[in-house]
């Protein structure tokens, strides 16, 4: 009985540790993809930048900043319908008024 209790405690401890480490890995992967995307934007390689953004979206599909960049990139590429969806998702996951306001301006601009 005592052995089981130790085992459960250890399992619980490692699962907490594992979750924390997975979160850090996720943030690092997204950061790397964002860095690659920004370099591509600076070189005006918008299609390439968009592929990195899509990869980042596959890791975390609830980050407003990713949708914000996606919207901007799609606008630059002239894909207005997809840009509208990206800005709508940006509003959905936004955690700041500034991003919401920016997304609103873009939606009005694109849909008017």
């Amino acid at each position, binding site marked *: 009985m005592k052995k089981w209790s130790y085992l459960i405690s250890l399992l619980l401890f490692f699962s907490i540790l594992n979750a924390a480490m997975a979160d850090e890995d996720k*943030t690092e992967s997204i950061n790397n993809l964002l860095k690659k995307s920004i370099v591509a*934007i600076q070189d005006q390689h918008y299609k390439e930048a968009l592929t990195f953004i899509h990869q980042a979206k596959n890791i975390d599909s609830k980050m407003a900043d990713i949708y914000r960049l996606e919207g*901007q990139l799609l606008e630059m590429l002239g894909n207005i319908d997809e840009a509208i969806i990206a800005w709508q998702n940006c509003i959905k996951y936004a955690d700041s008024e500034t991003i919401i306001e920016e997304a609103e301006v873009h939606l009005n601009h694109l849909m*008017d």
Partner: protein
Amino acid sequence: MKRIFTILFIFLYSCAEKPVVNPDFDFSQVKTIVIYPTPDYRSFAGSGSIINKSIVYHLMKMGVNVVERETTPVLIKEAALTQTGITSNTIDINLTSSDFVFLCTVTEFKDYKVIIIPVITDHKGSTVTTVETVDEPIVSTDKDGKEIVYYETTTTEIITIEKGSLTETERIKYVPSRVGVTAQLLNAGNGDVLWTNTYWYTSLSLSNAVNECVYGVLKPLKKLLK
């Protein structure tokens, strides 16, 4: 879900800032507009001129005849030089005049920037307490030599403590270029403001932000001039 977005959009659209229009004025009489030079935004040299050129482009696309006051002194100077015989080109100065003046102020003119935000994650740690209860049989004999079994309960507590920690990571953020303008159409005869609008826009490139911002500010005017 689509319905939610439609309702959200209608709400957002109703909140959007609209231009202010003089209701008594007939905009169909506006055929030629004189554009005055736009002052630069703070220390961004040339920003006013960039905006002005974009306004000229969009107004001409709308079918309006445009006179740029910025270029007028250059034309007059050229004409003066011709008269002195310094240049051979003959310039016939015949500047178009108009009753309508367009003024613009740059409210924002910022190029993109990449910022790194430090993110500190606080792992508060945890304490797990496991309580184990064991009933251990104890065998004894009574006076007659018979075995009596009774149970003694033992409780053991196991406390597992995970230490808290602070993890520092960084988040990269792209802040797009942002351009904002406030535009006015005036009646040069009496100084009446006939129309005014304000707009801002963000984009990955500064030139695109300028283009979209000027397009956005002039769009309501286009509807009126039709």
